[in-house]
C-alpha cells in the first residue's frame, strides 16, 4: 500500500516515544514476538539491533501509562517503509496503532519524501486505508515448510496436497 501525503499526527492522548534504549527495544521485540507467535529469542536475533537503528531503521512505541502497547518499525529514505506494526489483542481499539504510525511518519517525512509504503494483511487494510494508504497491488501469501505445530497454531491442516 502507498501513501503519498503525510497523514496528520493523531496520538489519542497516548505517549509516543522513539525507541532509543535497550529496554525500549526489549519491549518492542516482545510485542512483535507475541503477535507472530515467535520465540522471544528468535525475534531478538532477527530484528534490527539498536546499533542498526543508525542504518536507516527506527521504531516507535506507544505507551499506556508505563506499558508499551504498540510498536511500529520504519525504514528511512525517499520512500518510507513501515514494518511490523503490532498491537497485542488486549490493547486494540485504543488508537495506539494510529498513534505510532502517524507519529513515525511525522518524524520521518521530509521535503524529499515521495511517500510511505507497507505490506498489509487483508485484516489490516481498512485501518491503513483510513490513515491514507491505498492498495497498489494485491498478493496471495503462502506458508511453505512450516512445522505441524505451527500449522496447528494458525489453524491449518498438517497435511496439504498440491493443487
Amino acid at each position, binding site marked *: 500500500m502507498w501513501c503519498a501525503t503525510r497523514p496528520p499526527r493523531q496520538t489519542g492522548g497516548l505517549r509516543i516515544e522513539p525507541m532509543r534504549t535497550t529496554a525500549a527495544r526489549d519491549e518492542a521485540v516482545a510485542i512483535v514476538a507475541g503477535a507472530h507467535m515467535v520465540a522471544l529469542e528468535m525475534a531478538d536475533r532477527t530484528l*534490527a539491533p539498536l546499533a542498526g537503528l543508525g542504518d536507516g531503521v527506527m521504531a516507535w512505541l506507544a505507551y499506556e501509562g508505563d506499558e508499551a502497547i504498540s510498536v511500529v518499525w520504519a525504514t528511512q529514505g525517499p*520512500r518510507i517503509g513501515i*514494518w511490523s506494526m503490532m498491537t497485542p489483542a488486549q490493547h486494540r481499539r485504543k488508537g495506539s496503532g494510529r498513534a505510532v504510525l502517524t507519529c513515525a511518519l511525522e518524524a520521518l517525512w521530509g521535503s524529499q519524501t515521495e511517500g510511505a509504503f507497507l505490506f498489509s494483511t487483508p485484516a489490516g487494510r481498512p485501518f491503513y486505508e483510513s490513515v491514507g494508504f491505498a492498495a497498489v497491488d494485491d498478493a496471495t501469501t503462502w*506458508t511453505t515448510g512450516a512445522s505441524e505445530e505451527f500449522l496447528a497454531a494458525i489453524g*491449518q491442516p498438517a497435511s*496439504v496436497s498440491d493443487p
Partner: protein
Amino acid sequence: MDAADLWATFAEHAPRVMPGGLAPARAAGHGWFAVLTGEAHPDLNECVLTSRARAEDAVELVEFIAAAGVPALVSVASTAGPDAPARWRPPGSCARPYVSP
C-alpha cells in the same frame, strides 16, 4: 505508483528491518526476492514473487528456499505473470490466514 517499482523498493528496505537471525541469506532475481533469517519460523523468512515474475522466477525462488531449508512466507503479487500467474502456489504450501493487523 507503479507496482513493480514499489516492489523493488520493498526488496531494498526489507533486509534492513531483519538483518539478523541464525543464518541470514538474501537473494533476488528478475521477479523475486527473499529475505531469509534462517530461523525456524515462516514469518521470519519472507519471500515475494513480484510484478515482474515469470515462470522461471518461481522456480528460482523455490530452489533458493529449499536450499536454505527453512519454512517461509511466499507472497505472490497479483500483477505477476503471465507465466507466473497470481494464482501460482508454491509446492506443498498452504494458505496463510491473517487474523489481525
